[in-house]
């Protein structure tokens, strides 16, 4: 469905995408990365809004920059808000579908159906200026769905949705995925994506750091040197235990001896041993922070792996 061959995108001297190579079959994928990591650049390359500086982008075996007819098969829900204050969601979505050269009757029917899918039927004739952020978000998703695309690309689709809205959106996306619509779902919140798919692309600094299932990514992280941070009054008393271990690379005692940063080559050894040490010596340790609990740390670990620093 999607092929990127050594794709780079430069904005002057700034790199938006850096040597991306990936091949995706039809299915659901999450694009995970912190803000500014290049998710939107990747989406813009896939939708033909940007031309790659180097490399080749192919969607459904066609170049999206050169072949705009391809857009009929792609639906995009961008991260940016939309506001035409005196136009209703029904008018706007109908207009958007009509721009795909569908007949007026079909455009109206498709718009009505997609607005119903996102639970906007009741409000669809009200001007968009009266909508809440969540309602505008649903409307954006409706315009992406309305022309029945084969590939649906969503950039931060949960923005502005309340918990009920998030649940409904998850249900809708799972249903679409089960019905055969391919999904590409960008977010900086990992668990949002995990509810819909277990396949990820992890992007940072415009580079594709890892791709695969959550388990495969976990394995990469486990094989990569990473940092664990312990906080508590007794963290210094762990140093004698750690100093003897071959899998410890470095230790750093900070914050008036209440924070210990440990550089590890294999964190699983620490996970096996630390509970015993704490229990045996009756140590007060308040917090144990691993790379898994912090997305930035995950990306730092993956960046080290990407640079070839894994063992």
């Amino acid at each position, binding site marked *: 469905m999607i092929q990127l061959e050594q794709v780079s995108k430069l*904005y002057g001297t700034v790199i*938006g995408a850096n040597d991306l190579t990936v091949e995706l079959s039809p299915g659901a994928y999450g694009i995970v990365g912190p*803000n*500014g*990591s*290049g*998710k*939107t*650049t990747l989406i*813009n390359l896939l*939708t033909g*809004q*940007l*031309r790659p500086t180097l490399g080749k982008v192919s969607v459904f075996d066609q170049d999206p920059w050169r072949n*705009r*007819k391809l*857009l*009929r098969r*792609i*639906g*995009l829900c*961008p*991260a*940016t*808000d*939309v*506001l*035409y*204050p*005196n*136009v209703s969601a029904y*008018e706007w979505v109908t*207009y*958007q579908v*009509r*721009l*795909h*050269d569908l007949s*007026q009757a079909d455009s109206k029917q498709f718009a009505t159906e997609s607005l119903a899918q996102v639970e906007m039927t009741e409000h669809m004739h009200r001007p968009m200026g009266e909508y809440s952020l969540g309602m505008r978000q649903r409307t954006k998703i409706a*315009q992406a769905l309305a022309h029945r695309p084969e590939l649906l690309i969503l*950039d*931060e689709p949960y923005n502005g949705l309340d918990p009920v809205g998030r649940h409904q959106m998850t249900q809708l996306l799972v249903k679409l995925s089960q019905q055969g619509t391919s999904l590409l779902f*960008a977010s900086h919140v990992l668990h949002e994506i995990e509810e819909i798919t277990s396949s990820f692309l992890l992007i940072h600094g415009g580079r594709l750091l890892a791709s695969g299932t959550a388990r495969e990514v976990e394995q990469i992280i486990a094989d990569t040197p990473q940092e664990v941070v312990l906080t508590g009054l007794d963290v210094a008393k762990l140093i004698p235990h750690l100093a003897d271990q071959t899998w410890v690379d470095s230790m750093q005692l900070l914050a008036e001896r209440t924070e210990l940063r440990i550089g590890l080559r294999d964190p699983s050894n620490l996970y096996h041993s630390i509970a015993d040490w704490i229990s045996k010596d009756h140590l007060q340790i308040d917090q144990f922070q691993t790379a898994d609990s912090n997305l930035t740390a995950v990306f730092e670990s993956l960046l080290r792996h990407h640079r070839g620093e894994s063992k």
Partner: protein
Amino acid sequence: MNPLLVLDVVRFELRRSLSPGRIAIWGILVLFPIALVTAIRLLSNRALENTEDWGLALYFLIPEVVCLLGLLLWATPAVSTEVEGQTWIYLAMRRSGRNLVLVGKYLTAVLWSCSAACVATTACVMIMGSAGGLKLWFVICVLSLLSCLAHAALYIMIGTIFFRRTMVVAVSYTLVVEYGLAFVPAIANRLTINYRLRGLLADWMNWDTARTVTENIGGQESAWVHVLVLLATSTALVAASILRLTWTELPTQQEG
């Protein structure tokens, strides 16, 4: 390009632009020449009985001022407002979105400005009384339409080249080229739209003074040459804008 789709774009653009602010601007554009013509009529010591004097004033006020002001407001920011409002991506994601929306916005700008010009012309000719007349009304309306078609294409083109500070560029161009260069008696003034409009006014109204001034400033082309050049310029500018927009990477949103 499906003409029915273009009409749908025009319909949507008119629908979304029917806001109190835009209607007020349209009203100001209509009232501005009416107020000036009324003032001249009431305050002038010398009654302007001469159709040529009235006609030249009306021509300057409507096809050269009202039309240009309206188009600066409606045609120039056609693309930049979508880019700045971050709504361009929604249009660009449609199969024919870029081209259709550009042509639709162009026609909408022509409709808004030309309607204001024609309403203002009608009211002004009525205020002018015997000095006006059906012929003057018809000529000014046709010149307004040609002015709108050509200037809108020009401003749309400027808007597709300069996404930022579009208005500054368009106003500067208008002042320097359309109001400045058009009066310079040199071949370069034939590249301006206002030169063609002035030539048409003199020709169609058979005004000796205007004709002499036009011939001194420029050449002696026939009315048909002026009309053809204006229509060809409009078409070429719109086509160039479409090409430019089709192959331009417009900023879609903040990079994430």
